[in-house]
């Protein structure tokens, strides 16, 4: 399999991206901008990092629908669960 090396290069490029994003994220944290904006940016970047790992390192880009389903359903459930708890925990009486 000759394409292997290209694969390796791919993987290393992804790693470079991840590190770059990590650095930017940490820099934003030190920038003197509004907290909400900073948090939004930081978590946006975290999401991108996660997607990169999932897509390339966990091969989601070449996976079957089934795998997406297995991963997506609990994600939706967990988020939905947290949302339902908002009135009880954030706006508790």
């Amino acid at each position: 399999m000759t394409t292997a090396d290209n694969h390796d290069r791919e993987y290393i490029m992804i790693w470079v991206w991840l590190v770059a994003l990590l650095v930017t994220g940490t820099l934003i944290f030190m920038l003197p901008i509004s907290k909400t904006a900073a948090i939004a940016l930081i978590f946006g970047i975290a999401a991108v990092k996660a997607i990169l790992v999932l897509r390339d390192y966990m091969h989601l880009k070449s996976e079957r629908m089934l795998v997406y389903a297995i991963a997506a359903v609990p994600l939706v459930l967990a988020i939905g669960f947290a949302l339902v708890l908002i009135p009880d925990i954030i706006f508790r009486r």
Partner: protein
Amino acid sequence: MDRELDAAGSGIFEPGETIGMPIGKVGVWWFLASEIMVFGGLIGTFILFRIAHGGWADEAAHVNWRLGATNTFVLLTSSCTMIMALSAARTGRRERTAHFLLATVLLGLTFLGIKGIEYTREISEGFTPASGMFWSFYFLLTGLHGIHVIAGIIINATLYVAAIRGTLWSGHHEERLEFAGLYWHFVDVVWIFLFPLLYLS
């Protein structure tokens, strides 16, 4: 699904791969699904509490974001070495595989070491799980994640031994590397979110 039904309908299967996926991969993904619910429940609760209690800004000021960032770097790198090990294993470059696996294990240990340093610092400064809700969550989240890292290190170490012995390649077993990798990358992804949650806000 339909595709699979057709295949099955005509009675033609790969042994043990009715749906054209190795059982290991299906199993690991189901396991990760349950893990998503565990961490999802915990992280979700943490976010809600943090908003409800007005940010915990001053508590969060005491965690060492430099060490946190370093650890993120370590874990990201270990993910890279893990995937490199897999692609090496698939192309039968055995020594390369072993080396990258060893690197992954060592990076994992480095992560734990740094985390240990953080813990000792914080506890010596008097911040224990009992000193406030933020610290309770901090120690529970990082602790649970740490346990997952330890498990991952053990798995990767066994694979490393198999790689040196060469038994890793007997009967397509190098695919085990992919399954272990899926878990390891998942642990990495969890940390990718824990880092900003605990250190950067």
